[in-house]
């Protein structure tokens, strides 16, 4: 891989998030985005005059608006500034952070504002996603963003009993986290004694993927401000440093139906390369928190194995021993993750934002105990696209 080290370090100096919800009739798109932008500028103590470039993104075809970046200037503050629009599916939010990281690291701009948003109530998620598929074949077959493949694979490997329990345990842990996060769209207050009932009675969507396993459709926006080392140190007492990021994708949609085979996933491939080039031999030991883009409980439970390069049932044991909870060995999604809120174009950026807040120590009620020195955030796209972004508290690597 043609990986080059950064020209200069890049720090996160501002973070803004809206509250996530199923509906925002009170604002149009630019107005909603402006809430996150204003929040990020206030967080950084900056004004738009300090911003050199704006990168903006969401899902294509979701709100049915062509060139939203143009219209959204009313909320983004991009008027008269260098600006880019990026859209890469579910990974969009991670791509935005990665692009901003690259732009600053390369020396093109000192301070970049990245904005991800989605108003899913305005469009049709499943219909929009179906249009990513090959129009001559797969559009007729693809079931939107929903898939049973992770459940099929897990049940084949671990048997229905253990696999279904692990997925539901994962779901309830995420809900317990979501209940602490004031920005959550969905926080049900689920408890362990509801597992059997939910496994049996939550409405089925596809195969063993039930409604309770699946992420929501949310409205909301996220904004982050990234600066070069020199600027970041002037602008902010404690920037969160982006040590490295990796973005990997695979083939197009016609190959999606074969994902249940035991080949190396983009998640494992990305993780392996990222850790190798940063000299990390035991990621489970190294990282203090992981914000995962987990579109369903089945995927979330399964992917722990790939992201931490585990073998066998090591990932299930982490779930079963509740080591992924706040205070556990590897806290996963103290924010509640994607199951708590999924404004898709913002979702992957929210993972980075939440991980960065954990590093700063000011995440709010869902801040995990202890110091967070090393954090990692993932992004996922339906074409099997993975982004991993590594964050550090200290500039000492």
């Amino acid at each position, binding site marked *: 891989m043609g990986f080059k080290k950064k020209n200069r370090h890049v720090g996160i100096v501002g973070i803004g998030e809206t509250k996530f919800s199923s509906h*925002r*009739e*009170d*604002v*149009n798109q*630019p*107005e909603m985005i*402006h809430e996150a932008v204003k929040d990020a500028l206030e967080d950084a103590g900056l*004004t*738009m005059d300090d911003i050199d470039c704006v990168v903006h993104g969401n899902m294509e*075809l979701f*709100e*049915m608006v062509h060139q939203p970046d143009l219209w959204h*200037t*009313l*909320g983004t*503050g991009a*008027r008269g500034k260098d600006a880019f629009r990026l859209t890469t599916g579910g990974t969009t939010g991670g791509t935005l952070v990665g692009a901003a990281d690259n732009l600053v690291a390369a020396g093109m701009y000192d301070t970049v504002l990245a904005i991800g948003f989605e*108003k899913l*109530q*305005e*469009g*049709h998620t499943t*219909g*929009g996603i179906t*249009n990513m598929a090959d*129009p*001559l074949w797969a559009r007729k077959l693809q079931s939107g963003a929903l898939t049973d493949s992770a459940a099929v694979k897990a049940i084949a490997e671990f048997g229905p009993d253990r696999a279904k329990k692990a997925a539901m345990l994962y779901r309830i842990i995420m809900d317990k986290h979501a209940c602490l996060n004031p920005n959550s769209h969905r926080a049900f207050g689920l408890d362990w004694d509801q597992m059997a009932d939910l496994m049996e009675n939550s409405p089925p969507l596809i195969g063993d993927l039930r409604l309770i396993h699946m992420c929501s459709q949310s409205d909301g926006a996220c904004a982050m401000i990234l600066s070069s080392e020199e600027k970041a140190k002037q602008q902010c007492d404690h920037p969160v440093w982006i040590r490295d990021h990796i973005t990997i994708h695979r083939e197009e949609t016609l190959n999606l139906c074969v994902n249940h085979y035991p080949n190396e996933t983009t998640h494992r491939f990305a993780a392996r390369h990222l850790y190798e080039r940063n000299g990390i031999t035991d990621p489970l030991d190294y990282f203090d928190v992981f914000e995962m883009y987990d579109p369903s409980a089945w995927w979330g439970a399964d992917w722990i194995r790939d992201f931490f390069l585990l073998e066998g049932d090591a990932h299930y044991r982490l779930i079963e021993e509740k080591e992924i909870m706040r205070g556990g060995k590897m806290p996963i999604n103290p924010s509640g993750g994607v199951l708590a809120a999924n404004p898709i174009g913002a979702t992957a950026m929210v993972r980075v934002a939440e991980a960065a807040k954990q590093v700063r120590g000011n995440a709010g009620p869902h801040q995990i105990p202890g110091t967070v020195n090393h954090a990692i955030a993932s992004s996922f796209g339906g074409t099997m696209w993975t982004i991993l972004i590594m964050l550090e508290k200290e500039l000492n690597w």
Partner: protein
Amino acid sequence: MKNSEESDSYIIHGKLALPYTYFAGRTGSTFLTTLRDQRIIMGVKCTACNRVFVPPRQTCERCMADIRSQWVTVESQGKVVNHTVIRYQDKHLPRKPPFVLAMILLNGADTPMTHILEGVNPDRVVKGMEVAAVFSPATTNTLLDIDHFEPVAEPP
């Protein structure tokens, strides 16, 4: 089996049909309901740069000031500042060609608004022409509650 050739390629017809919903938000809704119920066109004024925006917006994108409560009423009459003649037919267009789309600066506003201009030969539209809104008898809860603009009658 022999290789594929260019002659194997052909055209398949498809369609993209997707439902969506648009929320005007509070500011947009105030503008539309006032237009619909009172036949009044409202804008918002930025207290920092003194510009009056029509249609309204919550934020002045130049000053980044929150201007959502700075409502002003503008006249439903103004001047053509630019225009174009639509000479092709397509199903998404609001009128049969040829018709005029004009940018109209309403009296009291600082930003022009694009709308349909009728009652004038498309080739006779000039910059500075005085025009007035003609409200639609039926509502669609859109900017088309102004059906079109037309020239103000020449004084005798």
